[in-house]
């Protein structure tokens, strides 16, 4: 598997570190309910198919990337810098 980093071009999997599902967003720590915090920490999307996920290009530009990847075929559909991510790209 190779990932086309928007800054560095097509690079080997070994250069990247995986965080996982990109969808959880941290609730306001002071206002969050227990169940909202539980959702954020422990529940992730786990589809067999397209998943939006966060990868870190640690042996390259050290940017966080939002990758839309098929978990069944490992085909990568899109890679964008994480701060340019449009929510719901996998849907």
């Amino acid at each position, binding site marked *: 598997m190779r990932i086309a980093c928007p800054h560095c071009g097509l690079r080997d999997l*070994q250069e990247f570190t995986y965080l996982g599902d990109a969808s959880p967003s941290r609730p306001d720590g002071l206002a969050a309910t227990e169940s909202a915090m539980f959702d954020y920490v422990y*529940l992730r999307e*786990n589809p067999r198919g397209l998943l939006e996920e966060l990868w870190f290009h640690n042996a390259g530009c050290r940017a966080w990337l939002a990758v839309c990847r098929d978990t069944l075929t490992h085909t990568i559909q899109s890679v964008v810098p994480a701060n340019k991510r449009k929510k719901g790209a996998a849907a």
Partner: protein
Amino acid sequence: MRYSGFSLIAQSLKGHAGWGPAWRDASPKSTYDVVIIGGGGHGLATAYYLASRYGVSNVAVIEKGYIGSGNAGRNTTIIRSNYLLSENIPFFESSMKLWEGLEQELNYNAMVSQRGALLLCHSDAQRDAFARRGNAMRLAGVDAEIMEVEQIRAMLPFLDYENARFPIRGGLMQWRAGTARHDAVVWGYARAADARGVDIVQNCEVTGISVENGRVVGVDTTRGQIKAKKVALAVAGNSSRVAAMAGLRLPIESHVLQAFVSEGLKPLLNCVLTFGAGHLYISQSDKGGLVFGGGIDGYNSYAQRGNLPTIEDVMEAAMGLWPALGRVRVLRHWGGIMDMSMDGSPIIDHTSVQGLYINAGWCYGGFKATPASGMCLAHLVAKDEPHPVAAAYRLDRFATGRLIDERGMGAQPNLH
């Protein structure tokens, strides 16, 4: 037919023409007391213990492919109970005890071989950690022995003891641990369950779980609708997908784990060996192949095949431990899909849907747990209360903070 030396001799005189199928390839009936989704080791063991220990035999095990075609046939066949945490030790030790009597109980040769499992340590700190783990095991009545380097060298002279980076400083041995033939475990449970009236339905994929007023009433399958009073999930790898059919979200990610087998060699390695400085476990099968594996690839996957960096990592660990392996060729390699839970420990529990039970989150420790997992899920389904040794494996432990984090990695499944 009961298998024995006499039956073997009698059949050999008749040219082995009289062996019948070991189980019926059943068609699904319209209604069962219990439907178990997943015809792997765990599902079939559950059916067997439901019928043999809890008197529930109107049971179907439904499997989307053929039995044992998922992770039951993709593991590295290691059985052991060398855990640290008090929630895990009793469960895995009960599994070890069931392994010890399994072949007599099932009347089936599962090739259970208690050849010992040795965890190597490579620093003083790691030795201390293993001493602690060994003490925890012995306190719980499990066998454990700290081995000195000289003892290990006498047993395994071919390892790289003076490796500049990771010299071998000793090890923690569990002599009762070992290996079992994974396919035979599946077949043995299938045969014994079938003999007690359980229907094993293959090529029958679940497409939906029917819930009415918060209670499960049956499952939709590619071979029609099946009504059931209770439904149990034993589909590790795909737990998130199947549980989603009943509207559940699980604290689980699916990851691919690769494993390898070498060409056949003469007897060389007489125990299960684990490298403590990387992630590598290796044993030699009775056919002579070295069976080994390492960590998961580390990204979500349902592909049942992995990528090359992980293979390189495993091979490097193998070479670091045992340099002569560089001359050995890899014969096959494969991948299986693991239910990676958020604390690295399994789940055997009720769900929020009445009559729906879940057995999931085995990470890559599911094979050794097969007998106890079946026993505990059967207990839960039959009595509606958890088995004492699995009482900690609750689905709600993540919400209540009662995590069982053997490796201390937190909610990052690819690190467990």
